[in-house]
């Protein structure tokens, strides 16, 4: 018997378009599956078709589209109730077992068919032309089939059982949809499990499981090894399959053939009451109410409809399921906010909002996709459409009412999420709620996004006139738009919805991002409005469902007011669109990705020959900077003194202006006269021929004026260095001398495609040209520095050097800085509204030394860790000047800048420090490493390793700069706190090392020859230096460093003074070897020269 039902189910489904649509959808998506799932993550050595990649991709796609399973499985029994044939069905002599089994197996077969789309799609995806053959292993169909059976099948069975049972028991489609959310919530909750083993067992999509079981694998193993079947993966699959069986058994027990659900006894009773006396109704006079069709009544209708459709969803239990899931998820899951090396930040509102946005997006999308379908179909599902359609109500007002109602639903979820955010903050003892950040985070960032996609969803549902197909198309739209952005077609005028709003910063709020964002959003909302109007015009009204006939009939639907509205919206849309175009493409230039690539190629081809031509070096910088934060402009005027340090005459000087359109080089002049060669004008690269050649040792003064002018706004991300509050830029924005390697095309594959030679990231230690450079394209070996900065009257502007004078003129603040000693040509200009903390430090045993001014400039609410930073400044200065060499400047400043970048960076005597790290960390001295202290110490160490000693721009450079700073900071941490804290820190570094190693796609270099692999020079560097000092003693290491600095100090090093090259790791290791006893010499090889991976 069950077989007949099974066969019927298959026959029924095989005639339905949805079955094939689902298959096609999964198939098409899976072709780009690997690329989509692993988009943006470094795959390292892992091949794109290695077992683990296939397993993760299949797991993720299955998870993402579990919702399709709910659409297939859920309707299986529900269908009988929807089409009202349940009474016929359930009175036939079929047994419950046969009915359920037949239906389940039938639907499950269809589900499997649809999901083989993943299998076939992924196989085909391997042969897509965009893959680099080097990233792939030989094709192995069995591997795909095996993975499908192992990864997808069990969870699919679970999902199928769950959805089938809920569909049969609840008899409510929306409940079925929301099951997808439950599975997702379970997945999110597994992330909160701290025990890795259990997390691996419970993760429904086995993403963490595969990570867990391959934890100890090398990159090569990960690339080739099959996943071990036995162990956690099997348990995981058995666990979920067993849950599926339990769900089925439960469903079987609970399901019965009654047509009426036995509940609500109270209401059935009251129904009985109604058959009482039929009062004679003829004497009741029906009052004649006035009918209104004017604008005011339209407005009233809109309000009533909005409320009606809103409450329709609001009262549903499934909606509250979503709300509660959304609220719970942050309370359980969000324990890591703004984490820096294992230390969490205070739960500031913007962190909470970002976390909430991330976790709840899926919920909102579910609401959007399904409820838009439900709303458009509401009357027809209830079979009330004919009554509605025969009333004089306007299609547009009704649709708009549904639209507003759904948006109100989003608002409710948002309010609930805010509530849970506030609860979360309160539980953490954080009471600075900042409601405006909540409000803008949700209503300014998410709501417009949802509102826009809801327009699309309504439009699609209205046109397609097939609910499931509509839902699929809406999802396709989401994905297509993301893909459009990924391919670089992201101009705000055609990238649907425009770019996202830039990050919120305590210092700068939404800064200059807000205005263009709002303008672009209104442009798109007008577009959305047009979509809605079109939807209303072609919406099914009456019995005609043919799209062409609806299109033909739509012209009769345009009422006068609607026509006026449409014209108005169109005009506004065009006006705002033109305004945006004027800003992004006339006032500013829009570069597509390919244009930018072409430019880089041309730049390299034309100018590469100039890379190492003899050029003078900057020896003196004297500038007057005028910052206008309120308009985001600046001017820089003054001079460089250039000196010919070469042994030949220099007749022409090559100047590169910053390649940014806002920046103009208004004037440039060389003393003694010159002519300009503008051949490379399009690269903003000018060659100035001097009237009199610059003799070796001679100097020439170069006057220039540069300005930065903000004109309107740009498409996408704009400059985040020049801000209303928190300007931070450095001298690489000013004119530089000669070829700039940084403008070259970097991506190795792209270079190959365009026929460019392989780019050497970092030169060999024997490269004579780069040994003379301390950084890429270095145009100086040290400068004298003087600068006057003017800024707005509420801001403080900072640059390196002693503050000679400070004054106010024209309602602006002016600061005059001069560095009394030579310094490296690396300086930052910073300006913001600041609170300050100032102290002094003096080394205790030197009574004649001048005290050093310690200053921290911070945002007014970020007082949490100022004392820790101040402490770090003192402890570091004391340790470094005692053990390495004296501190060279008269001041040391830390200045906070907005969190658009997440780093701290050392400049001579000044350390700009991002608000994202350190300032808002919630440090518990019991269990955390004081990272505010540590990062400060690290940056101060750069005053030695970077400012006192510079390293040649060859392999191993960053070991000298960063590894030594890591070492120095660890020693200060050890001295100030304890050895245990250092060990705890080392643990975080081991994690970082492992993460970095997994992503590495080349072989791991040694510390001595490291290029730009931060997991080596930061993480492995710290680990190895710790081991090194453990082996030979801290004092011995410090002695070596002391000697190294003495010999290689840029301004007065004993060896440095006799050579024009900078130090390399070869030099550094010589000092290490000197202090290492004979029997331990091998550890230097082990730690620094060999590539021995760290055992974890």
């Amino acid at each position, binding site marked *: 018997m069950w077989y007949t039902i099974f066969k019927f189910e298959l026959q029924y489904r095989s005639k339905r378009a949805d079955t094939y649509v689902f298959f096609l959808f999964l198939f098409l998506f899976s072709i780009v599956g690997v690329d989509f799932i692993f988009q943006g993550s470094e795959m390292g050595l892992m091949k794109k078709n290695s077992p683990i990649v296939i397993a993760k991709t299949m797991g993720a796609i299955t998870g993402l589209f579990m919702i399709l399973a709910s659409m297939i499985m859920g309707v299986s029994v529900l269908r009988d109730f929807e089409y009202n044939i349940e009474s016929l069905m359930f009175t036939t002599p079929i047994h419950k077992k046969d009915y359920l089994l037949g239906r389940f197996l039938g639907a499950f077969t269809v589900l499997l068919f649809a999901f083989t789309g993943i299998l076939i799609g992924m196989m085909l995806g391997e042969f897509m032309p965009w893959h680099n053959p080097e990233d792939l292993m030989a094709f192995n169909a069995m591997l795909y089939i095996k993975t499908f059976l192992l990864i997808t099948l069990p969870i699919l069975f679970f999902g199928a059982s769950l959805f089938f049972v809920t569909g049969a028991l609840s008899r409510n489609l929306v409940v079925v949809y929301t099951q997808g959310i439950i599975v997702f919530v379970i997945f999110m909750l597994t992330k909160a499990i701290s025990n890795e083993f259990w997390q691996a067992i419970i993760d429904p999509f086995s993403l963490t499981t595969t990570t867990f079981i391959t934890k100890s694998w090398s990159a090569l193993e990960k690339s080739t090894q099959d996943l071990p079947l036995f162990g956690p993966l099997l348990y995981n699959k058995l666990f979920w399959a067993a849950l599926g069986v339990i769900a089925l058994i439960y469903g079987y027990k609970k399901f019965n053939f009654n047509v009426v659900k036995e509940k609500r006894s109270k*209401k*059935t009773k*009251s*129904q009985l*009451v*109604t058959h*009482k006396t*039929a*009062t004679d*109704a*003829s004497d*009741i*006079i*029906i*009052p*004649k*109410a*006035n*009918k*209104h*069709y004017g604008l*005011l*009544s339209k407005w*009233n*209708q809109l309000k*009533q*409809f909005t409320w*009606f459709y809103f409450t*329709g969803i609001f*009262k549903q239990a499934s909606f509250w399921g979503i709300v509660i899931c959304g609220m719970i998820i942050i309370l359980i899951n969000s324990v890591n906010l703004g984490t820096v090396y294992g230390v969490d930040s205070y739960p500031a509102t913007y962190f909470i909002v970002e976390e909430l946005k991330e976790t709840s997006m899926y919920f909102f999308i579910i609401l959007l996709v399904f409820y838009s379908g439900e709303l458009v179909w509401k009357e027809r599902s*209830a*079979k*009330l459409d*004919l*009554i*509605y*359609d*025969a*009333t*004089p*109500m*306007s299609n547009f007002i*009704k649709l708009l009412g549904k639209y507003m109602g759904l948006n109100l639903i989003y608002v409710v979820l948002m309010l609930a999420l805010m509530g849970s955010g506030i609860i979360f903050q309160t539980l953490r003892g954080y009471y600075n709620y900042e409601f405006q950040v909540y409000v803008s985070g949700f209503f300014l960032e998410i709501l417009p996004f949802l509102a826009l996609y809801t327009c699309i969803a309504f439009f699609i549902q209205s046109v397609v006139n097939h609910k499931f197909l509509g839902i699929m198309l809406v999802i396709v739209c989401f994905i297509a738009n993301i893909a459009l952005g990924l391919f670089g077609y992201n101009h705000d005028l055609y990238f649907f919805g425009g770019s996202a709003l830039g990050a919120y910063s305590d210092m700068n709020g939404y800064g200059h991002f807000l205005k263009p964002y709002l303008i672009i959003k209104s442009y798109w909302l007008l577009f959305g409005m047009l979509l809605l109007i079109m939807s209303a015009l072609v919406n099914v*009204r*009456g*019995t*005609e469902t*043919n799209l062409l*006939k609806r299109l033909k*009939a739509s012209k*009769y639907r345009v*009422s006068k007011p609607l026509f006026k509205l449409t014209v108005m919206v169109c005009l506004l849309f065009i006006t705002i669109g033109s305004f945006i175009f004027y800003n992004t493409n006339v006032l500013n230039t829009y570069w597509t990705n390919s244009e930018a690539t072409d430019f880089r190629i041309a730049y390299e081809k034309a100018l590469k020959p100039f890379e190492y031509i003899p050029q003078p070096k900057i020896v003196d910088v004297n500038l007057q900077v005028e910052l206008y934060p309120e308009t985001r402009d600046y001017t820089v005027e003054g001079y460089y003194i250039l000196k010919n340090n070469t042994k030949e005459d220099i007749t022409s000087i090559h100047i590169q202006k910053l390649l940014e359109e806002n920046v103009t080089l208004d004037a440039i002049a060389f003393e003694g006269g010159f002519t300009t060669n503008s051949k490379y004008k399009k690269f903003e690269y000018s060659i100035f021929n001097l009237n009199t050649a610059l003799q070796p040792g001679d100097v020439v003064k170069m006057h220039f004026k540069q300005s930065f002018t903000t004109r309107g706004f740009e498409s996408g991300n704009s400059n985040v260095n020049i801000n209303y509050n928190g300007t931070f830029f450095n001298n690489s924005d000013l004119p530089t001398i000669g070829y700039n390697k940084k403008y070259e095309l970097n991506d190795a594959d792209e270079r190959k495609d365009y026929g460019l030679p392989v780019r050497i990231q970092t030169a060999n230690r024997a490269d004579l040209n780069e040994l003379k450079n301390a950084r890429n394209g270095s145009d100086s070996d040290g400068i004298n520095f003087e600068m006057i900065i003017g800024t707005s009257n509420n801001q403080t502007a900072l640059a390196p050097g002693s503050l000679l004078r400070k004054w106010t003129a024209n309602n602006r603040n002016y600061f005059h800085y001069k560095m009394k000693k030579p310094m490296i040509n690396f300086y930052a200009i910073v300006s913001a509204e600041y609170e300050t903390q100032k102290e002094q430090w003096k080394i205790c045993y030197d009574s004649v030394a001048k005290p050093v001014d310690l200053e921290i400039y911070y945002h007014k609410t970020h007082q949490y860790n100022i004392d820790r930073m101040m402490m770090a400044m003192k402890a570091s200065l004391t340790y470094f000047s005692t053990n390495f060499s004296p501190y060279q400047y008269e001041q040391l400043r830390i200045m906070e800048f907005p969190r658009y970048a997440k780093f701290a960076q050392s400049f001579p005597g000044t350390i700009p420090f991002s608000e994202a790290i350190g300032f808002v960390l919630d440090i518990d001295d019991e269990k955390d490493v004081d990272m505010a202290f540590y990062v400060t110490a690290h940056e101060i160490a750069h005053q030695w390793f970077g400012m006192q000693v510079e390293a040649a721009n060859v392999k191993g450079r960053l070991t000298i700069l960063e590894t030594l700073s890591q070492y120095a900071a660890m020693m200060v941490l050890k001295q100030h706190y304890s050895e245990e804290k250092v060990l705890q820190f080392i643990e975080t570094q081991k994690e970082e090392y492992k993460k970095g190693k997994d992503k590495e796609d080349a072989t791991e270099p040694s510390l001595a020859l490291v290029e730009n692999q931060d997991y080596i020079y930061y993480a492995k560097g710290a680990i190895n230096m710790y081991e090194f000092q453990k082996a030979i003693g801290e004092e011995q290491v410090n002695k070596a460093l002391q000697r190294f600095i003495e010999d290689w100090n840029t301004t007065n090093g004993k060896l440095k003074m006799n050579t024009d090259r900078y130090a390399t790791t070869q030099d550094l290791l010589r000092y290490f070897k000197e202090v290492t006893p004979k029997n331990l010499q091998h550890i230097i090889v082990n730690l620094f020269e060999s590539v021995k991976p760290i055992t974890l």
Partner: protein
Amino acid sequence: MDLIINNLSKTYANGVKALQNISLEIPTGMFGLLGPNGAGKSTLMRTIATLQEADSGHISLGDIDVLKQKNELRQVLGYLPQQFGLYPKISAEVLLNHFAVLKGITNKGERKDLVEALLHKTNLYDVKKQNLKGYSGGMKQRFGIAQALLNNPKLLIVDEPTAGLDPVERNRFYNVLSELGEQTVVILSTHIVDDVKELCTNMAIINQGQVCLKGKPLQILENLKDRVYKKTIEKSELKAYKQNYNVISEKLFLGKPTIHILSDANPGDGFSLINAQLEDVYFAEIFNTTNAKSI
């Protein structure tokens, strides 16, 4: 204000000719539209109710060109479709209120009075707070008429409203309807002949998309006066009788076929003259048109 239908035709995509040159003049009062299942009644009603396009022809209500000025018609239209559902989880009061807004009754006070009066009128007042899910067929139908009356319609279309109702509910329903006939065009489609006899001042019979008869019930009956004869026969004889007489209907009476025939003269042969019922008219017309087709 009369509803005038002129040469209305509609052919579905599958070739079914649902309406063929239908022309009717429907004055104020109750108008009965009779016809068997699938005769085109619902298509005609939906077309008048602006829910369906016609291929050709013309409909007007007073100054309103129904096929073009749909919204103007909807403002004076009350429509109760043959089949409709209700949102299960809201109450009659809320839904009726919602429909009132749909129909442009946006003044809150007026709307409240109106909804209340209609709930009284349809005897739903006591259950107005109850979820519509629990409504019986009769209550649902009464709710349907309540919503149709919200905008004080000039044209009221009710499509087979009494199907599935018990006699008590049916009477109650007709009581409400009959009051309206005084100033409204009410079109009542049905295949229950008695409904028309009891309620309607005018009627038409349509079959296979064509009007086969129109007029006042009493006049129509007059045409059949002294022409309908009845006889109870044996089952085996039925075929022979059908060949020899104009058998317009056959019914079982105590298990034996009773046939009605149409004859201008007394056929004798055990036939007895009966008072023609409207049903006989109906069957006679259906008999004629269907036969005409098959020849």
